């Protein structure tokens, strides 16, 4: 995966994870164009589109679009499953997650994503293990800072 973007139906960015080195300017340009392209898609269209030399996989959950750019050899259908897994993780963590949760706790959304994917690939395929790791990491703040003054 080269990058993942989460954005609302009004085109507001809620999360951006880049796995390739690009300048801020390029990221903004890509984001703007891609958001426009995806938002222009009609509901009857499929979840995949070709954009520049990438394959784009996107899916809408309630008011949020989850959009991933994958490479030629990557499997589009399993990417849909990756997106779904991430949504499930967010849902479990926040309890019936909605867009507002992601807005107000964006840093947590990142932490969860970083426990699920690393460098664009899944690092853990068990839902339980990802959630456990987040829990423990959150707790470790406690034991951690207690240990150090």
């Amino acid at each position, binding site marked *: 995966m080269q990058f993942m973007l989460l954005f609302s139906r009004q085109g507001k*960015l809620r999360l951006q994870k880049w796995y390739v080195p690009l300048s801020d300017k390029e990221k903004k340009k890509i984001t703007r164009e891609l958001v426009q392209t995806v938002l222009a898609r009609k509901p009857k269209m499929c*979840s995949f589109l070709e954009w520049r030399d990438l394959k784009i996989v996107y899916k809408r959950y309630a008011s949020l679009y989850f959009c991933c750019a994958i490479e030629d050899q990557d*499997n*589009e*259908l399993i990417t849909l499953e990756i997106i779904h897994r991430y949504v499930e993780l967010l849902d479990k963590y926040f309890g019936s997650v909605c867009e507002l949760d992601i807005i107000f706790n*964006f840093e947590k959304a990142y932490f969860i994503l970083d426990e699920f994917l690393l460098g664009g690939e899944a690092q853990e*395929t068990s839902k339980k*293990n990802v959630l456990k790791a987040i829990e423990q990491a*959150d707790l470790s703040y406690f034991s951690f800072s207690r240990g150090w003054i």
Partner: protein
Amino acid sequence: MLIVCWSPVMVEVWNGPGDKKTVEGPSRMPAPIRLRELIRTIRTARTQAEEREMIQKECAAIRSSFREEDNTYRCRNVAKLLYMHMLGYPAHFGQLECLKLIASQKFTDKRIGYLGAMLLLDERQDVHLLMTNCIKNDLNHSTQYVQGLALCTLGCMGSSEMCRDLAGEVEKLLKTSNSYLRKKAALCAVHVIRKVPELMEMFLPATKNLLSEKNHGVLHTSVVLLTEMCERSPDMLAHFRKLVPQLVRILKNLIMSGYSPEHDVSGISDPFLQVRILRLLRILGKGDDDSSEAMNDILAQVATNTETSKNVGNAILYETVLTIMDIKSESGLRVLAINILGRFLLNNDKNIRYVALTSLLKTVQTDHNAVQRHRSTIVDCLKDLDVSIKRRAMELSFALVNGNNIRGMMKELLYFLDSCDPEFKADCASGVFLAAEKYAPSKRWHIDTIMRVLTTAGSYVRDDSVPNLIQLITNSVEMHAYTVQRLYKALLDDISQQPLVQVASWCIGEYGDLLVSGQCEEEEPIQVTEDEVLDVLEGLLVSNLSTPVTRGYALTAIMKLSTRFTSVNRIKKVVSIYGSSIDVELQQRAVEYNALFKKYDHMRPALLERMPIMEKTASNGPTEIVQTNGEAEPSVVEAKHPPPVTQPTNQANDLLDLLGGNDVVPVIQTTVPTKPASAGGELLDLLGDLSLSGGPAPAPATSVPSSQPAFLLDGLTSPPLFNDIAAAGIPPMTAYNKNGLKIDFTFERANPNPNIAVITIHASNSTEADMTDFVFQAAVPKTFQLQLLSPSSNVVPTLNQGTVTQVIRVLNPQKQQLRMRIKLTYTHKGSAVQDLAEVNNFPPQSWQ
């Protein structure tokens, strides 16, 4: 959300980074606003301007807080900065602060610090290198979650330098027994290898027992790591082939094992791992018989047993199909795979249909017959609502067209052409032309198909199709009458589609006599008079819908009819009217044609007679046969073919050429009178170093400017087609003079096109032996086009007893300085002689 509360500090953990209470920290300043507070406030802004104001205010506060070097609230401030960054506001002044957070001992600091680094820093910033030491320390931290942060950051955005410095640490962690760290280290190693491929070797020992892990996370990331290594290095690939049995076993266990709640997705056990294993197997089995055989059974098992009701099952099937098609699988397995794709095509889920079409496109060359069986389903997908699916279906349809199904397929494709979006029309039209050319069952059908395309999608047809079609039409000799009749009728209906109009005008100009004589055999001949035809053509000249190019076609067509029709006076009148046209091109033509009526009337019939059949040069797609300005040259163009280029027999390749690249490279049209084997390639060699760099060219090897020798005028065997209308003659020049061979150039500015210089070469031989098998070749820089007509002979007689002449026509639309590289080959006194020379001393009048 977890709530732990036995002290206020704990509550804060869950509500966001940073403390509410100012336990420590500067007492002069109020505590910076909390993150959630800020988000809430910003969201109340009703306009962009209001938002900007709030942001600016907060940024200022954050900046001063940073200046204070306040440790307590740094984390909170950076978090706020990250939020504002996501809204699109600049946050670069927080970069160093992220580094400070990373260096902090507090976990929440590190967490936000690393997040900030991943968002604000990238390898282009010098600052990011400062992270290296921190990361190194954190990779060795006592708490695995800190180590995890470091691995994650390094694996996400580490630069090559960082990777080089820290590869050793990553390698160490790859060998740890802690699976939480091991899986992260594996993916981090993938990133390191991508950044610094030379380091791949050092990870090899650590991969030894990666696959014996029970932990799925480690297994998954290990397979990814192995895949990366195999993709990058054939040696690694060979080395890891021995893992095939183990991979097969793991896959088998996944399928056979019962319900495992931890990894279950809709009844399938760890689909992510299954897909990655299948992908690795694909790489390992490709081109290797033994490996392919070892995985045959498991592939068949997965293909037949996987549940297809949900997307996840189909994802696995999809990967399986890709693997089957890529390795050396037995034919039964391949057919199974294609059938899976066929079933996919019927799936309600459009994503599945899309994926099926993509895969079929990849396999259509190798398993053509198997894919043919699904042709009707594929053709149905042309009617799908989704743009991507339609495009795939179109490409695949063209790939499946063959001699047997051409009629049926063309019907569907033409229907598609009628109704499809404009973005498809050009590609579809080109595809139809190509397919028709290859498989037309009859000439009549071919012409009809072309007509259908021109009339329904005429404005989308590519410009280079026009000369192609003209050439095609001239070849179908017995269809001329039918063709011109149909084109005429089409013109009566609609003159807006330029390619149609251009082809029609050309045909009417060429075959107008057949039109008025009512000779058509194929269908009911129409009654049309000469005046009616001229009305139509004149109508094109005056219509606003006609482009300048079209007008040129029309005028030339009218002119040509002067030798085919009896009403010459009307034509003369039209031609003389356009002699004062504002359009320079038309004016030039009209003036030339006028001159043809006046001074050269005796030559007119010969010049305007029926064109000979144009032979095709070796076809390489749509870039062949470029006529300068698309005008019909009355001169006979003798095109001898370069040796037949072996065409890739698979249609898909042609198609991809056709549909993919749109750049038409101007072809230098040269005709070589002898030695066809030496044509194309050598000229391109000649062109090799010929650059347009200004400045004085190096003194040409030969060309001693000489005074006009007497034989210059004697040797003229092919008179210029027209006297130059522009002023006095351009001085001749000696282009080459070496070893007794002298080549002079004489010039005319001629033709309807002022950008064409006509050069006649005169080769003479002052030695005492004949120069036989004489071949003159020329090449010009890219902005020019060049055409060589046939030479008068290929023997340059001894002792200046005669000359060989040859006409070169150079098109110089950009009026660049004319330069030429020439190559001479001949046999002299029994030995073959070859020489290359550059000609740079062209008189300015020849190209200005």
